[in-house]
């Protein structure tokens, strides 16, 4: 096969991997602090992209024409809105259900995601159709053989990787990160040490949801299109990535994200019908779950009875 062709698939796979990893990091953060799965995460990704789109419509009305400036404004708006939404969700729906069976949390967030999805479909102007996402980043391209290296793809990869590294540094190097890790390890002891449990949980949900918004905007900028249903698949993929990597592990989520992108890319190259790539990737995930039931990197801990 032509090396340029392979490089094109590789580049595409890396962008996908960055998006998936950003979504998966959210899942793993929430699981770390609260042992819950927040299934509306994919729809938060979608809502982030739509918030950005709505902001862009507002900017157009104001007559802003500079693409880079618009890109920054819509990203900030999307991230801020989703961070608030994530904290509200944790406060109103997830924390009150702390003592309920874990499945109830799973279901309530699934339903919240459905409500979010339906709300966008019904109430966003013409929301049931795919919406074009503005092309805001410089699209200068460099052609090497069959490979078309576009500047915006490179920018998106750098931005995404930068965001993941920033989250990693935040968790490993700052006081709030220390508090998040303490709560993840042992909520009771963390409370005894004077950590404000609820605040840490809300911060974590805000952080994860902000990353989700960034993932949604990256997705929109890369494909130049968003639709109300994109969150479901992205959420399931992010969840699969986090689970395959091992829930609660940051590195696991990143590895899982890139692994899923790799599986999809392999599936796309392998099968003549491109839609089989998801069937292939999910089948691989089911097999992986059978082989490593608690993920690739999760630590095996004995269950307390």
């Amino acid at each position, binding site marked *: 096969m032509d090396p340029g062709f392979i490089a094109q698939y590789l580049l595409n796979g890396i962008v996908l991997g960055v998006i998936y990893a950003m979504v998966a990091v959210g899942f793993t953060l929430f*699981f770390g602090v609260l042992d819950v*799965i927040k299934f509306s995460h994919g729809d938060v990704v979608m809502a982030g992209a739509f918030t950005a789109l709505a902001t862009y419509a507002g900017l157009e009305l104001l007559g802003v024409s500079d693409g880079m400036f618009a890109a920054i404004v819509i990203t900030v708006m999307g991230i801020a809105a989703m961070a608030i939404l994530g904290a509200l969700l944790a406060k109103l*729906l997830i924390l*009150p*259900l702390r003592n*309920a069976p*874990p*499945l*109830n949390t*799973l*279901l*309530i967030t*699934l*339903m*919240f995601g*459905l*409500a979010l999805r*339906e*709300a966008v479909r*019904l109430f966003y102007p013409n929301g049931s159709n795919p919406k074009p996402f503005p092309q805001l980043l410089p699209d200068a391209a460099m052609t090497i053989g069959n490979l078309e290296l576009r500047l915006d793809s490179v920018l998106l990869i750098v931005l995404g990787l930068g965001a993941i590294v920033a989250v990693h540094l935040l968790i490993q190097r700052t006081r709030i990160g220390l508090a998040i890790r303490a709560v993840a390890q042992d909520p009771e002891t963390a409370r005894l040490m004077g950590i404000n449990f609820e605040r840490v949980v809300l911060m974590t949900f805000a952080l994860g949801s902000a990353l989700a918004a960034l993932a949604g905007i990256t997705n929109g900028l890369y494909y130049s299109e968003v639709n109300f249903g994109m969150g*479901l*698949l992205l959420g*399931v993929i992010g*969840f*699969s990535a986090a*689970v395959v990597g091992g*829930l609660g592990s940051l590195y696991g989520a990143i590895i899982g994200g890139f692994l899923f992108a790799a599986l999809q890319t392999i599936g796309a190259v392998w099968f003549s*019908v491109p*839609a*089989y790539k*998801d*069937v292939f990737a*999910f*089948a691989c*995930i*089911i*097999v992986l*779950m*059978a082989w490593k*039931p*608690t993920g690739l990197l999760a630590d095996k801990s004995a*269950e307390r*009875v």
Partner: protein
Amino acid sequence: MKSNRRGYWPVIVTALAAAMFVFLFLYLEQQWEIVLLAVGLIAVLFSSARFGLLRRVELAASDHPRTTIMVNVLAALLVIVLLRNEHFALLMLATVCLYVTICLGLTLQFGYAGIVNFAGIAFFGIGAYTAAVLSLHSALPHLLVIVISGLVAGLIGSLLILPMLRTRGHYAALVTIAFGILFRTFLEVNDLLGGPQGLKVPGMQVFGWSLNDNISLGPLGAVSFYASYAVVALLLAAGAYALIKRLERSWLGLNLDAVRTDETAAASFGIDLPRWKIFAFTAGNCLAGVAGGVYAMMSGFIAPASFNFGDSLLLVSIVLLGGSGNPLGVLPAALLVVVLPEKLQVIQEYRLLLFAVLVILILRFRPEGLLPRRMREYFAGWGR
């Protein structure tokens, strides 16, 4: 013990009232009447649960399990006779019965054994596609085809349970979610199964008699052919209900309860966890598959669009809304969830949004559902 048994008149009264209600619910057209009926149903359920009326009916029903099923089937047949000319109402009634059957399967999996299944509609779909392929390409009798649909769904489910056995909780949920999405995508890209356009399915034939023919029953006059399907679906749902109810009362149900409540404790009492999980998961999927087979023949046409992940969530909501683990709760919940959006055109478009909000509110404020499951009675007469 004979003297301890109660009379069965509460069962008969309840069955007649329920039949009356179902008839009105399906027959009336005015929007405000429908809203009134739905609100009335929820109010009656809540208040009768609060004042212990429901308890009396349940006790009477558990004293006379056979009479209960008989009376209720007769009451439902009465509804079908009353609605004999209404195509749409009968189709809805049949759909409700099929949904009840799937949800009873889910009750067995989730309510009893504690296995989450977010791919309920996928197993329903496997049954439907099996029935379609078999009745198109083979001469097998249709009753046998429907049984095979259930077996195929159970078989594929028992492959899926293998990774689920090694995990639990969220990880097991992922396996079913991944399968549900995989199934839909697979159907859409598979040309052998008709791709996105789906397949046409011939109508059901039982002992040489085609259910798609209109029948005329002497004094009753012309009867819609959906009436025959409604009867088939009703018998299926009643059979599934009797089966699940029997299972709950037996040692099988006791073992399943133990598995759900505490896996570690159950295992240390010598209960073979994988065996019971496989049993519950496979049996539940078989029910879904059989319902799918009947659905395919009834609707005459199946397509991937009928088997969305959202529909699986709808099924889980029915189980939860009714009260997880209580087969009785499935009936009003399925009726509300299936019929209400069809009858209320105002909410048709907002159906999923409303259900999502409803389930969120239920989980937040009344997690036990409309009709909560009661504690198992170990000795007859306890707690009366």
